[in-house]
């Protein structure tokens, strides 16, 4: 068993142990769940340590027959992009598990079982190199998320849960049709049934069919991201989910969509991906998402809903970067995906902390919290600034690189997206001002306790990670440089020849620019 399979199946193995524990032993279950999350992270360490940055292909590959007559394999492997997202998944898993300690006291065993199942599904999505295996994991994620929202969520949880499920499922069945078309094309062209991504790369399809498949995959991924106008499930799901659910949704689940574009849409359908109309439509949707998401945030009275809508805006940046179709844009997008996971994860945790104390999400219910909860206010300030893209923090690195890429592709795009950064700062600062500053006007806020040690421990890894990416992003850019270059070369052959010098690891324009500027 390769280390990758080990990392992939650790949460599932922990789940089996968890199921064996008696449901009444809540403390034991909680401890085991936290241990499991840490084990999941630990299982990823060998991969991170032994990862070869100079290799642009898939590493830690493992392959086994699953359903030979349909050409479906158990075929896993990672490149820099997927490994980073797996790391994000594992860290989010730790954070989400730990933050639920006090928040969840009902049906504890089922709760942690769902978290571990979710973890397996998400890791599988990023590790799969077989399209059907990917699809199985993709669908596997839906069920535990449905229950997380539906059982432990807020007042409108049932509505939010089924809406999330229906939206995503509608997208993914259409995606399945696209996958089957690719499979059938491979079958007719090469005479072998396979869903393996490397094999599907060899396809040459007529342009109309590429477009057809592109749109079918687009629906699946765009709903997951979510891109405007498919975002309407997101505010409900994020707002009603329990804190851990929101954190995982924002940090990892949305990334499955952007990852899908990078792993499948672009490399498999290069002609459609650079088609003028398609790119313009996607960029336009991204820019609308950036601005619309930010504007809606300014209107929100609900703290959690505000954070939810900020995801729409931030993911708009990610898709803008991807469809700039150049190394800066795509690399920035990957980094921004990490950043969004870290920053928005923190923001949801912040809301969770406030909600656990006051059981309301109305912004107007809070004011002057900084007087009572200085630690909380500090952490919130950090999260807010990281999300708003303050230089030296992680958000800046991603947004800056994306805008660089967008500018290179078309200055107008960058010009249209920049107000999004400004608006982002505006709604976050205003939120901060309304909740943290001023006098304590509501008597209920007068006696709130500050962050406990456990809560600090929840935030700590995210804070450290945010600082690391903000101060020294070079290792991250190095990790994804080769895979990103591969994608760009695939969709725009000859891109690197036209622009001398050919980027080599040390002197790449990406690493020197964004790494060296600070």
């Amino acid at each position: 068993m390769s280390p990758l399979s080990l990392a992939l199946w650790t949460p599932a193995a922990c789940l089996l142990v968890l199921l064996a524990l008696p449901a009444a032993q809540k403390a034991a279950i909680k401890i085991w769940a936290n241990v499991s999350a840490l084990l999941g992270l630990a299982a990823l360490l060998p991969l991170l340590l032994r990862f070869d940055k100079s290799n642009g292909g898939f590493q830690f590959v493992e392959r086994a027959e699953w359903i030979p007559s349909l050409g479906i394999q158990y075929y896993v492997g990672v490149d820099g992009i997927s490994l980073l997202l797996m790391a994000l998944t594992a860290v989010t898993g730790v954070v989400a598990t730990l933050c639920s300690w006090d928040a969840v006291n009902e049906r504890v065993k089922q709760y942690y079982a769902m978290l571990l199942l979710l973890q397996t599904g998400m890791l599988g999505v990023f590790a799969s190199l077989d399209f059907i295996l990917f699809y199985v994991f993709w669908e596997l994620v839906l069920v535990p998320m449905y229950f997380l929202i539906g059982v432990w969520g807020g007042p409108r949880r049932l509505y939010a849960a089924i809406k999330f499920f229906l939206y995503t499922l509608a997208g993914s069945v259409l995606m399945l049709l696209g996958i089957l078309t690719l499979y059938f094309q491979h079958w007719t062209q090469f005479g072998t049934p396979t869903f393996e991504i490397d094999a599907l790369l060899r396809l040459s399809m007529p342009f109309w069919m590429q477009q057809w498949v592109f749109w079918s995959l687009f629906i699946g991924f765009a709903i997951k991201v979510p891109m405007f106008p498919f975002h309407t499930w997101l505010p409900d799901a994020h707002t009603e989910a329990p804190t851990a659910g929101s954190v995982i949704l924002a940090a990892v689940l949305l990334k499955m969509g952007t990852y899908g574009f990078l792993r499948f849409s672009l490399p498999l359908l290069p002609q459609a991906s650079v088609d003028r109309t398609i790119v313009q439509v996607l960029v336009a949707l991204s820019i609308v998402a950036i601005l619309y998401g930010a504007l809606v945030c300014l209107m929100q009275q609900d703290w959690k809903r505000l954070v939810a809508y900020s995801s729409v805006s931030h993911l708009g940046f990610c898709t803008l970067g991807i469809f700039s179709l150049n190394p800066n844009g795509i690399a920035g997008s990957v980094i921004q995906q990490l950043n969004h996971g870290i920053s928005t994860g923190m923001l949801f945790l912040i809301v969770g902390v406030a909600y656990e104390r006051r059981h309301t999400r109305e912004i107007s219910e809070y004011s002057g919290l900084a007087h009572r909860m200085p630690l909380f206010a500090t952490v919130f300030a950090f999260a807010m600034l990281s999300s708003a893209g303050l230089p030296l923090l992680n958000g800046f690195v991603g947004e800056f690189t994306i805008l660089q890429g967008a500018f290179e592709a078309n200055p107008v795009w960058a010009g249209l997206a920049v107000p999004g950064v400004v608006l982002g700062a505006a709604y976050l600062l205003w939120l901060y001002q309304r909740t943290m500053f001023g006098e304590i006007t509501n008597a209920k806020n007068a006696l709130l306790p500050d962050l406990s040690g456990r809560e600090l421990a929840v935030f700590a890894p995210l804070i450290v990670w945010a600082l690391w990416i903000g101060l020294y992003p070079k290792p991250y850019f190095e990790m994804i440089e080769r895979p990103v270059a591969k994608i760009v070369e695939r969709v725009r052959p000859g891109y690197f020849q036209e622009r001398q010098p050919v980027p080599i690891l040390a002197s790449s324009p990406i690493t020197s620019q964004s790494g060296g500027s600070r």
Partner: protein
Amino acid sequence: MSQYYTPSDHFALLPALLLALFGCSILLLDFFALPQPRQKRWLILFAMLGETFAGVALYRQYRFLEDQSLPSLRAFSDSLVIDGFSIFFNAMFVAAAALMAVISYRYLEVEGEHHGEFYGLVLMAQCGMFFLASGTELVTLFIGLELMAVTFYVLVGFLRSDRRSNEAAMKYLLLGAFSSGFLAYGFSLLYALSGSTRLTRIAADLSQRPASDPLLLLALVTTSVGLLFKVGAAPFHMWAPDAYEGAPTPVTAYLSVASKAASVALLVRLLMGTLDSHRVSWEPLLSVAVVLSLTIGNLSALSQTNLKRLLAFSSISHAGYVLLGLIAGNRTGLMGISVYLLTYTFMNTGAFLVLIALRQKGMPGDDIDELSGLFHRSPVHALLMALFLLSLAGIPPTAGFIAKYYIFLSLVETGHYALAIAAALYVAVSIYYYFRIVRTMFLGEPGQLLPAIPGWGARLGFLITAAATLAIGLYPEPIVQFAGTSLLR
């Protein structure tokens, strides 16, 4: 034609002979040897013995074709054919009937209607199905169909003192007789056109005729209407919700699974075999039926509060999915139909079995709200139901996904993109009503429902259905191989 009867005819007919023999013996045994109510359980064993014999006979036929590497074995001067297709379907009927016998025992006890002829009728119906799957001659087919239908009229109304059961049987009988009339009319036209009742002769003759021949079109329409009725496809589905709701639950399961599969088998043999040359004529007709089935089935299921009615409407939509494979009409489509029906046998029977296992005296247990909070009372049943519902919706890694996979793939292969998109989107619709049940079971407040009394029948039934639903989903290779080699010989 010189010799009317050969030993190989006997070999081909063996499964049906055994079923009829055991079916009739049960009626006699019930009357003479085991008259006491407590002795009825032995009849189940006897019925299972019959199924085992029928299974062995089928296996012998399968081995025979394999060893001789024959594509098919024709018998009774081309009135019956034993080929991979018929063996596959008959094996499915054996599985469905055996499951049925296992799960009925406790239900009939609870209802106080435990009569031995029940098991006899189950075998008789299966005998009719044998002819639907293997017959290649119009009269044989019609008699097979009527044997199946008439037994089902009785089975649907088996709860003599229950008014709903009686009403269901009456409705089913009236509409069923009507549809049989259509079918008989269609058959007579086919005979009039070709002068023969053998499907091979009809096929040869009809392929010479122009597609615009009005008589031919009339024959096509009437035959299809008759069979679409039996399949339970819209717009000929009106009987299904009432019959499903009123019938004893095991019969509902059997009806929705085996009777549907048998009628589909005949439809496939007629349309893809005999009338294949006139595909242009029947494909639009069938497409309309499919789209209507998907639409009416899924949309009506959304608002149902009675579980059996909900599953009835969902079964209409499943009929639509199965018929999509017929529209695609290639090898993948044929695989899709068979794999779909096989998985449907297990997952749908499983879903009904949950209802049966929960059934108590005086507790109808058919209303969705009555399952409220089931997870707290008997988590195993709730989890099993969730598994079956996920599979019905086609979520991987359950068997239902493999079934839908084939159907979608066949549509993509043959370029039916619009139908593929419609069918895919209806999966999302179906999730809504399936998950209404899941939501009630897992998220609802615990209601008045008594905990289920475990019985060996239910246990065995659950074991088979759940294991099959999971195993076909996780490792479909053996089934795929078997279906592939037997169907696409």
